[in-house]
């Protein structure tokens, strides 16, 4: 009896596997079609932008958006960088690039350092109401900018720093604190307590433990938070527009102005070249740092 049972089982199994195998192939093809299609969907805007930036204005006007460029004409890029007209001045987007750098460096360095210090204090030292403090901080991350802009403008102008690099740096640090502190604090919670205890027995104080012991152990977290901060600051538009002052406008703002500056025929190739140049730093960072970027983004998401 067992023989018939097993043989029947084997038969159904083999026919099931046969059916599964054929539907498997169809399923597999469908799967890859879906994935490749999705990849095309995601890649298309970037491809179009690159191809358009390498065309001449006539090519764009007479041809269609999906045609590849006839020759790789990079004049649009040079023009976007140094001679395109933004409003009344025709200096290209180069100025905006350096402004972005001038805003990003102090903002990100301060953000990461301050958040690391806060996360360290909140996790490895006994602070009363640490949980409540963290919750209050996290809630801050959810407040829409629009609710805070006017008061912050008034406050910064009362201190006398409105419309300057200092103002935009402080604003960026403020808005970066919640998520970055949370990430550092969660990371430091996983450090062994004995490490700190031993250092304290040796007489090290709060700051010495931070700079000599904890910070050197934090390379991974620092990279992740730095990536988050740099990307956020570089891609910001609204805050910089409001707080940075006319002489310090970053690339994103200049880009928007450049694109809406219409003198005669709109030069799509220059516009797209400028767009790509603006997108390039965080994009390169993303491509280079790969796993760290993903971790940063998912960490920031899940922890928040």
């Amino acid at each position, binding site marked *: 009896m067992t023989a018939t049972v097993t043989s029947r089982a084997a038969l159904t199994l083999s026919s099931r596997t046969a059916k599964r195998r054929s539907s498997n192939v169809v399923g597999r093809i469908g*799967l890859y079609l*879906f*994935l490749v299609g*999705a*990849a095309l969907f*995601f890649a298309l*805007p*970037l491809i*179009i*932008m690159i191809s358009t930036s390498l065309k001449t204005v006539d090519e764009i006007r007479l041809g*269609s*958006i999906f045609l590849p460029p006839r020759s790789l004409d990079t004049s649009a890029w040079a023009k976007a960088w140094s001679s395109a007209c933004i409003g009344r001045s025709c200096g290209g987007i180069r100025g905006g690039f350096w402004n972005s750098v001038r805003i990003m460096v102090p903002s990100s360095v301060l953000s990461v350092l*301050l958040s690391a*210090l*806060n996360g360290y*204090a909140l996790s490895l*030292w006994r*602070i009363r109401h640490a949980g409540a403090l963290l919750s*209050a901080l996290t*809630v801050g991350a*959810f*407040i*829409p*900018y*629009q*609710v*805070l*802009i*006017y*008061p912050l403008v008034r*406050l910064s102008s009362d201190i006398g720093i409105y419309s300057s690099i200092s103002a935009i740096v402080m604003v960026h640090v403020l808005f970066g*604190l919640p998520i970055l*502190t949370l990430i550092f604090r969660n990371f430091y919670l996983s450090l062994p307590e004995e490490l700190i205890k031993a250092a304290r027995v040796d*007489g090290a*104080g*709060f*700051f010495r*433990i931070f700079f000599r012991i904890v910070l050197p152990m934090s390379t991974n977290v620092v990279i992740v938070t730095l990536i988050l901060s740099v990307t956020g600051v*570089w*891609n*910001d*538009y*609204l805050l910089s527009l409001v707080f940075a002052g006319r002489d310090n406008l970053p690339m*994103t703002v200049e*880009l*928007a102005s450049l694109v809406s500056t219409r003198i005669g025929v709109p030069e*799509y190739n220059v*516009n*797209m070249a400028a*767009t790509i140049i*603006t997108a390039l730093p*965080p*994009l390169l960072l*993303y*491509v280079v740092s*790969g796993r760290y970027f*993903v971790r940063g*983004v998912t960490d920031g*998401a*899940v922890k928040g």
Partner: protein
Amino acid sequence: MLASSAPATKPAEAGSAPGFRPGRRHRTIPAAAMARLALVPSILFCAIGFYGAMLWTVVISFTTSSIIPRYTFAGLAQYADLFGMDRWHTAYTNMFLFGSLYIACSLAFGVLLAVALDQGVKGRGLLQTVFLYPIALSFIVTGLAWQWLLNPTTGLQNYVRGLGFQSFAFDWLSSPNRAIYTLVVAGVWHAAGLVMAIVYAGLGSIDHEIWRAGRVDGIPRTKMYLRVILPMLKPVIVVCVVLLAMDVVKSYELVVAMTGGGPGYSTDLPAKFVVDNLFTRTNIGLASAAATLMLASVVMLLMAFGWFQKRRATP
């Protein structure tokens, strides 16, 4: 004043300052207090920058302020003005329309992508990179890129018409009724990769035992995903929903780059409404009322999230 005095180890003079430890540095602040001290600047900074500022805006919304703040109590006058404005109604309804589509499509697309990648496909790393790269781009760049693609005169419509389909129409961007959907397309393009990354990480954390149990029971894969795996990922998906919802409330730059709020104000969103009224029309009171309503929406969202968490904790 002895010239030959050796460096004095000051003997503990009776009644010297507290915290004085002979043989060490004077007056060391105990490290624990230092920790608290180090936090104070940040606490003050955040208290003023977040909560103080928020309170200020809410207060202004109840005053008669227009170009400059005037602290005369005006009750709900600003809100009444707000509700009488067609533009605000459009902006507010747009937020829900855009928001629900954006969240639903990003979620669906992202989950599909994550599940598809979970099937052991080749080139998974490359595909993930391609799916996720838009998150590295500014919303301005995203908006501009899609604006060109969907622009009737130069983009998709022009191309298909050039292929011979003269009656092909894809002028959503210039149609007051449809322009909002272009925002959805650009938004989903930007965010689906993030959903994919988060859900994919969640999928990876699912115990292999569960898969084996499913195989032993002969459950087909699709049912496995629908009935077993995805319900297990509910907290991950909730996180995605919250994140996406935050994007919706904040979405200023996408509108500016893609449609400028137009045609007319058909694609206006509360975020843009507030900023326009603050800086272009300089009606501080009205803008603050609008901002307070945005805040109220966020608070309700957070409360719903908190309620969901509580429900999850009590089985």
